């Protein structure tokens, strides 16, 4: 309480406009530190950690454009840079393997599974938070528990289930099983967003004769767009990332997704495979990194929101 007051006192303009930021952006006591001290305690460790976190990507990118002879001869050429980059590996990957098909499969599965999950989660989250039917709290708790069930204990029984339903070795095996990972997460996330939408809006709409469906589509969803974007991006990333189901349920090469195909189909005995392997890893990550670059804030809020709620 006193913090809020102090914040308001410190920033009269924010009070006038009625928008006091939730996070305190003031400088704190950091100005007491001298530059040399900050160099040692802050910039040095930060750059070491960043170097370790980013070096594998640099190495991945460099490997995918290095000519073969430089790739394996570390002593003649400096291994950390190349003056004659080549697109040979990328060319081989895109035009002499099934890589474009795998990329398309991954995209198809990720988009379909995400859309199914978002629709199911919006309905479920709205019912749990706003319809508050009998036992809604218990269902909310159960959904959180479902979020904690990891795929690595489910894939064995799921493989028999997928087989029973006749889905084995089709894209549907993945499109229909991925929502089990995504629905609990996105329902949980959307429940948090729906809770922040004021009740009064819905009460007004109800008095004006709107049905629940109209309220959901015309009032709640437009207000929850940031939440929907967060859920969409996070679900899409999870799909793209998924490995164990795709490895178990898909056996023919033409239906494989990128992560599985790279490990099973692209790895051969060839000693010069590293260039195209790294190119495959790089291109497989690019769609996610691009998506991420545009929606960093949504991504972070999805990640932290799921933890905080």
């Amino acid at each position, binding site marked *: 309480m006193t913090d809020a007051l102090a914040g308001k006192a410190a920033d009269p303009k924010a009070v006038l406009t009625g928008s006091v930021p939730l996070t305190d952006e003031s400088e704190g006591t950091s100005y007491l530190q001298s530059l040399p001290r900050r160099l040692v305690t802050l910039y040095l460790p930060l750059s070491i950690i960043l170097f370790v976190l980013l070096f594998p990507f640099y190495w991945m990118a460099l490997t995918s454009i290095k000519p073969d002879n430089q790739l394996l001869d*570390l002593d003649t050429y400096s291994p950390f840079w190349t003056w004659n980059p080549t697109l040979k590996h990328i060319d081989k990957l895109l035009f002499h393997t099934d890589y474009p098909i795998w990329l398309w499969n991954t995209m198809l599965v990720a988009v379909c599974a995400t859309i199914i999950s978002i629709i199911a989660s919006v309905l479920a989250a709205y019912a749990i938070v706003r319809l508050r039917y009998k036992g809604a709290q218990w269902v909310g708790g159960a959904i959180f528990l479902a979020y904690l069930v990891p795929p690595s*204990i489910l894939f064995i029984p799921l493989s028999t289930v997928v087989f029973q339903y006749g889905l084995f070795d089709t894209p549907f095996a993945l499109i229909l099983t991925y929502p089990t990972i995504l629905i609990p997460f996105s329902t949980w996330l959307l429940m948090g967003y729906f809770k922040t939408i004021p009740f009064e809006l819905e009460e007004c709409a109800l008095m004006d004769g709107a049905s629940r469906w109209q309220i959901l589509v015309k009032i709640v969803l437009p207000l929850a767009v940031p939440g929907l974007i967060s859920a969409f991006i996070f679900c899409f990333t999870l799909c793209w990332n998924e490995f164990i189901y795709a490895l178990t349920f898909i056996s023919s090469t033409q239906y494989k997704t990128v992560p599985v195909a790279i490990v099973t189909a692209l790895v051969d005995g060839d000693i010069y495979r590293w260039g195209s392997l790294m190119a495959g890893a790089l291109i497989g990550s690019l769609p996610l990194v691009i998506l991420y670059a545009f929606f960093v804030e949504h991504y972070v809020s999805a990640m932290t929101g799921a933890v905080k709620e």
Partner: protein
Amino acid sequence: MAEIALNRLKTIPRDVTAWDRLKTNKNWLAIWFMLPAAVFLILFLAYPLGLGIWLSFTDARLGRAGIFVGFENYEFLWEDSTFWLTVFNTILYTTVASTIKFAVGLYLALLLNERLPFKAILRAVVLIPFIVPTVLSAIAFWWLYDPQFSIISWSLRKMHLISTNIDFLGDVWNARWSVIFANIWRGVPFVAITLLAGLQTVSPSLYEAATIDGATTWQRFRYITYPLLTPIIAVVMTFSVLFTFTDFQLIWVMTRGGPVNATHLMATFSYQRAIMSGYLGEGAAISTAMIPFLLAAILVSWFGLQRRKWQQGESND
């Protein structure tokens, strides 16, 4: 004018049919709203979960339904030294990786919470290892750990720290530390960014007050940051432990459990037994054996959440 009003009055009251009541009944509506999610979660989550436990009591093979054999699979595993080796590996992997992820993640979060230029960009860059699909970064690590052409070995040799290349994935303990390092590398951003979100809600005025009272850096961390961060730490660490314990991708790509099963985790071991060798029942028993550990993690998470609400002075709902 009056006539119109009267007419309207006449038309309004009509019999409230059972259908009207049903249409506005919360529970009836809720069934339809919950249906899609419920279908998926029951067909592809709850049912397989139960089926998995049932399978662990049968001698099912790949492509053949099994018959009930009681605890035979578990008895077999109990005698199997490879199984105990994977349990040891999994516990080692989880404890070491989670502890270091927590320490480095918290440290990185504290660093990023300082006054920095380009803070938003830095935060975005830190998260990249978490965005990139695990399998693809695992392949990059595989190449970094190559026995002949590893850039790490090469650099250490040029610095005259070692004389021969390190066999990262070929030696038992080297392989264990190598996969643990890759797991830490991937997990640190998640821990750091979520803890950073928690740190940003701590008001700097608390630190100012403590500094005026003569608190040292350590005291400020210990008596302000840590207590305020405890609830979020509990939840983040539960997730981290949960996902490290059930890890599959990193191991499968980098070592497939080798050398001599030194890096097999319970998840990879169950895949090997169930899918590759075809002993579904046995594989299911290995997965089921993971459940008690997961329950323990979930309980910790649950109490972490409860404590948070209590700290904020809210009632539990």
